[in-house]
């Protein structure tokens, strides 16, 4: 039976499709991460999970994680079949996190897909804004958090600007045209531009 691509239930966007291997990889990772830190799935996977048909090999996940929780998180990932590109122990990997450098995790004996694990803090204004204003999205039994769609579109159009980002933004603008809010666009654009000019 034909269904719409998505429906809205309460505050959650339900994508009406089956789970892919890529979704299941992220689901396994988030089930561990959620025990130790809040998170936000951002960038390419937001577009891909909502129907943009393009290749990807990594999924970007923002996190605000404390050192002790990171140690426990790292150990559980290791026990559950993940490896970290940057190091085999949590101390080594945490040296990247404390400098706010990303690290990557994949399943053992595999390179792709991988998670780009991006540490943030309150000083990263735009990233902290999206992190604290999540949108819930659900595919079958897998619920996770993404930025407000308006934020994701503008971030791709204003900051990232590569061909694939402009295409992702167009996909999101079209697919979600009925639910996008002019007010939210205004708020998000202000945050993104302020953050951009502060860094410049």
């Amino acid at each position, binding site marked *: 039976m034909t269904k719409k691509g998505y429906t809205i239930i309460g505050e959650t966007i339900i994508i009406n499709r089956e789970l892919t291997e890529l979704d299941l990889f992220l689901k396994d990772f988030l089930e561990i991460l959620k025990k130790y830190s809040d998170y936000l799935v951002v960038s390419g996977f937001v577009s891909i999970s909502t129907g943009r048909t393009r290749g990807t090999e990594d999924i970007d996940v923002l996190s605000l994680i404390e050192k002790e929780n990171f140690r426990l998180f790292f150990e559980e990932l290791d026990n559950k079949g993940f490896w970290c590109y940057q190091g*085999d122990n949590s101390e080594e990997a945490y040296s990247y996190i404390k400098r706010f450098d990303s690290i990557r995790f994949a399943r053992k004996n595999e390179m792709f897909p991988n998670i780009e694990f991006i540490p943030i803090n309150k000083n990263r204004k735009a990233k902290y804004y999206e992190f604290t204003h999540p949108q819930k999205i659900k595919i079958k039994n897998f619920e996770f958090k993404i930025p407000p769609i308006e934020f994701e579109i503008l971030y791709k159009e204003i900051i990232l600007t590569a061909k694939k980002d402009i295409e992702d933004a167009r996909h999101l603008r079209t697919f979600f045209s009925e639910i996008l809010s002019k007010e939210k666009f205004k708020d998000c654009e202000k945050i993104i531009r302020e953050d951009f000019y502060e860094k410049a």
Partner: protein
Amino acid sequence: MRKPKTDLDYIEIYAEKLKKDNRLFEQHRIFIESQLKASLSLFHNMFSESDFKKEARKYLKERLLIK
């Protein structure tokens, strides 16, 4: 409707269709999974299982993908 010319025009048409008909997600799933399988098999063949991490890190360092 104007004739599509650019990649962005096609992306828009596909997103419009997908919005109305979720059966298109089946094509999407096939594409995503075939790309994943291709990447998986490429790197399985490149590195030995016994020394996977060491060889993978060497490969990543040579391409400046890790420090």
